[in-house]
């Protein structure tokens, strides 16, 4: 198990290297002139002299590989450059905004699990009865509604009409409720469908009929033989949901004025703030890989076959 975790951790640096170079090259070789973006953000008139100065200042007059090498050398010292817009170190901004995003994505993940697993289980155990139909309808609506639109609906209902919850900001637990709901809804509904399908699959396994024939009580059958076996596919999906939740948080953070990494990145996209975008992609890749590593470890912990196979 430790060896597996170490191997996965060791795969992170080459992956980050590949992603960083790919993204760096895409930004520089894409449409537009980074020097022009830089001057626009600094509100400096883009005269030919100013453009030449900006290109020299940013190292844009050097070959792409040399530019990347310089960036990499700084990045290895945890210096991801300076935002062209705010003029602050990207690393400092990540440190400021990442906790809010992790809080939102973490809460949304909890909501996803708390909603998706029990309802999926409930729907499967009452297949083709009203709970099944109702949860399937909810799941259908939940995956169809865009999260930004749902976010506005939630604000209209709970903040403007009822006045129960704040419409924006990050001022205590109450302000987390609506953003977490808006972020989690789609993932929770996907999770619900996945758990339902997975439980139905587990219910049809021959060992379950055998266990029932042995006279095991229903609670034990469902709790030990169905639920645990059915958790493996949703667990795998959790790794993917992590990326989805952080990605989904981009729009939701903007709607709720949530001071997180997603809103920061969205502004950087609008501003074409290259150092910020590069830093954001690095963080996103790291979080995604580490999240999936955790999921894989949990997977091995849950399923003895994997654990034993790896040990062998």
């Amino acid at each position, binding site marked *: 198990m430790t060896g597996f975790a170490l191997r996965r951790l060791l795969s992170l640096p080459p992956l980050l290297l590949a992603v960083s170079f790919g993204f760096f090259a895409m930004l520089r070789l894409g*449409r*537009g*002139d980074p020097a*022009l*973006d830089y001057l*626009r*953000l*600094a*509100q*400096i*008139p*883009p*005269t*030919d002299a*100013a453009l030449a*100065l900006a290109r020299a200042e940013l190292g844009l007059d050097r070959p792409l590989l040399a530019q990347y090498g310089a960036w990499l050398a700084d990045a290895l010292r945890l210096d991801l450059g300076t935002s062209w*817009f*705010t*003029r602050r170190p990207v690393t400092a*901004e990540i440190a*400021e*905004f990442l906790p*809010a995003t992790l809080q939102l994505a973490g809460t949304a993940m909890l909501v996803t699990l708390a909603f998706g697993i029990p309802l999926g289980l409930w729907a499967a155990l009452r297949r083709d009865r009203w709970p099944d139909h109702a949860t399937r309808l909810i799941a259908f609506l939940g995956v169809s509604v865009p999260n930004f639109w749902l976010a*506005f609906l939630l*604000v*209209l209902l*709970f*903040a*403007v009409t009822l*006045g*129960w*919850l*704040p*419409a*924006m*900001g*990050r*001022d*205590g*637990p*109450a*302000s987390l*409720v609506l953003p977490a709901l808006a972020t989690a809804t789609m993932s929770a509904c996907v999770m619900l469908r996945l758990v339902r399908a997975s439980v139905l699959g587990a219910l049809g396994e021959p060992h379950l009929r055998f266990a029932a024939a042995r006279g095991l009580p229903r609670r034990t059958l469902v709790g030990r033989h169905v639920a645990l076996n059915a958790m493996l596919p949703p667990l795998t999906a959790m790794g993917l949901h992590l990326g989805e939740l952080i990605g989904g948080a981009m729009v939701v953070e*903007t*709607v*709720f*004025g949530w*001071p*997180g990494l997603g*809103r*920061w990145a*969205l*502004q950087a996209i*609008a501003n*074409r703030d290259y150092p910020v975008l590069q830093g954001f992609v690095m963080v996103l890749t790291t979080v995604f890989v580490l999240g999936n590593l955790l999921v894989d470890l949990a997977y091995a912990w849950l399923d003895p076959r994997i654990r034993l196979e790896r040990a062998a």
Partner: protein
Amino acid sequence: MLRRSLLRALPALTALPALARTAGAAAPARSTLRFSWPANAGPLHPHLYAPNQMYAQAMLYEPLLRYVEGGQLAPALATAWRAEPDGRGHVFTLRPGVRFTDGAPFDAAAVVANIRALLARPERHDWLALVAQIEDAEALGPGTVRLRLRGPYPPALMELALIRPLRFASPAVLRPDGGISAPIGTGPWMLAETRPGQHDLFRRNPHYWGGPPALEQVLVRVAADSNTRALALEAGEIDLAYGTDQLDADTFRRFAADRRFTTAVSPPLATRLLAVNSARFPTDAPAVRHAIARGVDRAALVRHVLLDTEPAAGTLFPENFPHADLGLRAPDFDRAAAAALLEQAGWHLAPGERVRRRAGRALVLDLCFTGSDALQKSLAEAIQGDLARIGIGARLLGEDSATCLGRQKSGDFGLIFAETWGAPYDPHAFLAAMRQPAHADYQAQRGLPMKDEIDRRIGAALAGTDEAARAEEYRWLLTTLHEQAVYFPISFLTNKLVHRADLGTVPFGDTRYEIPFDRILPRG
């Protein structure tokens, strides 16, 4: 079963208002105004630009002279001023007893220290002619300072009223590398707290020379999205929305119809326009430019797209701006007359065709806008429709703002959206920038046969010492640009404000970016 489930969920529902009360407990006291802005205030350096937000710079830092609506100047940190006979020197008498918020006196030495800090990095201020004109500043006494220019520059006093870069921080915070160690000014407000991505908190300056503001604090919450701002206003989480585009026109109209809110629209502050490229086919032909001027229904744009939140603009600058009251009028909208102009110029519409042709070339132009700007997109679509009705094809090019800027710089556009800079930059600083190839205005005018004369006369208007001659230069310049139809003015930009009716009195600032928090009088 269902009933049992609902009953189980009830305690959770009843807990929600309790959570809301927790949130409400953190709400600021009544003497705090809650406002919102798309970004944090920034480091608040008085001499620098982005990411410093102009409204916040204006809260902390003050000018020697203040711009007053209509183009006049009023005393601010200087109580009196006079020009020296050679036109190169300006002597200012400083307001006595003024102190920075760190306790340091505002005196001639502070003015000199700030101006020298500014002159140490002049390349940052290339766009502003005054910075290049300043030779030096010298203290003639503790309360008197002389600004020495390289040559006569009559707009100098007006440019001293700008929000940046000619305002003053305490000399103690000016660092040798050009930065500041803390945002310390003489203004009515002090920055008390900044939380990136969340808010900025300003406290009133209790020793402000003009008397402390009635409000104790201004809390500026960061909300990038205008819909979020509108909902926060409606939910009572912010008290005021103020600005040119802080709320979209539809939302503003909705608030205007709601008795719980007070809304107001300021006098014209700048101009929303299309620059028409005189150096590029087909708008290089005067007949095409004049046909556009007559064939686009400006009143309909204002009524249906801007929802009457901005007045229609017939001229490059509003008439309440200096030198702009010339009696110029936009040609009346007349589709038949526009089509006739094109016919006379040889642009004919073949049967069954939608676009006119002349000598085999189709009358098609590029209409460029910022793709993420919903308002520009709607205006562009309406203009495209109007142009189609007179046989001009318009290709809509919605791109990111950097690409649009690139097009403005290179002249790669037929029509492109732009704005004038507003008071106190207009008209003189805006005209000065028309001489720089990096600006859309230069590119739009490049094809005019009198472009050299325009540039020469702009120089004369800026540097001349004879006021009557300068006025005549302005008259010629604005009339020529108007007659050549290289601009299609759409509307005059206004500031819009919305606040809860019980907030009190909220006046408008004299310029686009000044929000007069210090003059807000809360009710009760």
